[in-house]
């Protein structure tokens, strides 16, 4: 991450210069609504400069966790830090650098998109009076709303409302951007736009936290993931590492499945028939606990098995997610 250009080259405040800084941190965060435990003691670090995808089934506590990190909701227990500031006491110092779209866009129906955005911009401490009009224009253009800017918000489609919510986040350069389900209601073009915006933010050194149920989106845009299940964090870390850890072994495509299985098992490897769609060729999967791959392939070839292809099986995020959230722990 050291190669990332920083948003502004401000000198660090004295006494606060940890390497591998954390943009947001949850320490034992817990939230109860009556008897329901929405978030159950979550510890999470959002590394600075990362794009963290927050995943989880509906009701797993993603939004509640985000709301507590932003100081919108008081935790029942635990503490949070935002850009190094304690929440909620120091939050006024952190929030000017934070852009957030939480629980859908919120705007006034009787104002136009531009007027709504002006009102939001007026409240931004880092925007000078004279910069507001320009910042609003740029943000509207960036989300593709320039043509509809002067129509009343009341008449906006769901996708346009979502775009306006994004525009509010993009009014000024941020250090942290939090997007809660940003692709809700967006058409495929809108979804691509969101992906582009996240990539631009990432390139500018902004830390991004994005919650989504669209796993493909997360896999395409995120560097880190945090998976929530029933209010608990079941996995968190670099996307690459998590996916690599989910690797199940070697996949060998061959028409001679039975012979291959017998050969592999007699060599001390765990092997089983790969479950495949009927359209695909047959294959066997070999676990990592036996002999190394080159030896196994040599064995198979010597035994007369026709090896059409051998590759590392790569889990995608969808499989990982399913394994983490659907299997009983």
């Amino acid at each position, binding site marked *: 991450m050291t190669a990332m250009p920083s948003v*502004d080259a401000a000198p660090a*405040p004295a006494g606060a210069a940890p390497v591998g800084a954390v943009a947001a941190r949850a320490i034992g965060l817990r939230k109860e609504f009556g008897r329901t435990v929405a978030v159950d003691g979550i510890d999470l670090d959002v590394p*600075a*400069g990362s794009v963290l995808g927050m995943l989880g089934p509906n009701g797993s506590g993603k939004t509640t966790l985000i709301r507590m990190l932003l100081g919108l*909701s008081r935790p029942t227990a635990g503490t949070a830090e935002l850009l190094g*500031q304690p929440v909620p006491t120091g939050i006024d110092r952190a929030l*000017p650098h934070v852009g957030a779209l939480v629980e859908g*866009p919120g705007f006034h129906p009787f104002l136009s998109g531009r007027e709504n955005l002006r009102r939001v911009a007026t409240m931004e401490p880092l925007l000078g009076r004279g910069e507001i009009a320009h910042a609003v224009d740029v943000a509207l253009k960036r989300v593709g709303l320039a043509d509809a800017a002067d129509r009343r918000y009341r008449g906006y489609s769901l996708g346009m409302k979502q775009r306006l919510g994004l525009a509010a986040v993009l009014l000024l350069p941020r250090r942290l951007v939090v997007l809660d389900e940003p692709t809700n209601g967006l058409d495929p073009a809108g979804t691509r736009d969101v992906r582009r915006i996240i990539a631009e933010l990432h390139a500018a050194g902004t830390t991004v936290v994005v919650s989504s149920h669209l796993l493909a989106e997360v896999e395409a845009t995120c560097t880190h993931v945090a998976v929530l299940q029933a209010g608990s964090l079941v996995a968190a870390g670099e996307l690459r590492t998590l996916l690599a850890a989910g690797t199940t072994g070697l996949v060998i495509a061959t028409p001679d499945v039975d012979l291959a299985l017998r050969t592999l098992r007699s060599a001390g490897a765990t092997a089983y028939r790969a479950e495949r769609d009927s359209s695909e060729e047959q294959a066997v999967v070999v676990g990592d606990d036996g002999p190394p791959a080159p030896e196994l392939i040599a064995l198979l070839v010597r035994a007369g098995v026709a090896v059409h292809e051998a590759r590392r099986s790569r889990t995608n995020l969808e499989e990982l997610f399913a394994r983490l959230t659907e299997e009983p722990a």
Partner: protein
Amino acid sequence: MTAAAVLPRVDTPRGVSVIRLLGAELRWVLRRPRTLVMLGVFALVPVLISIGVAVADSDGSNHGLIGAVAGNGLMLPVVAITVSLALLLPLAVAMAAADAIAGEAAQGTLRGLLLAPVGRLRLVGMKAFGVLVVAVLAVLALAVVGVVAGMVIVGRPEGQLVTLSGTTLGMGDALGRVTLVVAWTIGQLAAVGAVALAVSALTEHPSVVIAAVLGGLIVFGVLSAIPALEWLQPYLLTTGWTASADVLRDPMPTDGLVTSTLRALCYLAVGAGLTVFRMLRRDA
């Protein structure tokens, strides 16, 4: 990524200036169609009363306070304000307070304000200002249109105000009395607004605020009508609401005006305290 790019500088501004905040709130209040409709309704009240009086005057059937307006135009603004204070003005203030916090919460815009960030204490100040603006504009609409309609439609005896006591006041004195009743009414409405804002801070449903204020007014009215509960009267905000007619007497009795203003201050303090207490803790 170094910490410098992540941690905010110590001199990061924590919010925009108060002037900018109040300006934005003022724009928002005045751009809201319902505010404008409401002000239009208040401008109509004196006009309607004056037309009613003028029509009734021709067949000699004017009685009571409204009857006293006949041929005595400068009395119209005071009468219009007194009549509206019973229900219309508190309703307008309740509506403004409902939109101010509960409405913003329902719209999802309260989150935006808190995330900007507008500090929670400043948010209360900004919202109280917005409600007060609506109260002031509503009373001013009644007063200004009242004075104009009074002089144009009702007419006045030689530019003077004939008081309920039978004496006459000059134009300057009469306008002074109108100004006094405007200020007193704004004080009473500020009390209503503070309580309404406290309710607004408690709920996400704007209609709850309006229902609470109207319900409260009705309950107060019922309580004050029960003889056995006479000891309760000094504590009811509505008890002093007939004091506005006192400015139409000569010499002017000040007891009622002062007592009701002090009572309003108590309601204001309690309402403001509750609003702040709740907003510092509210989940948004």
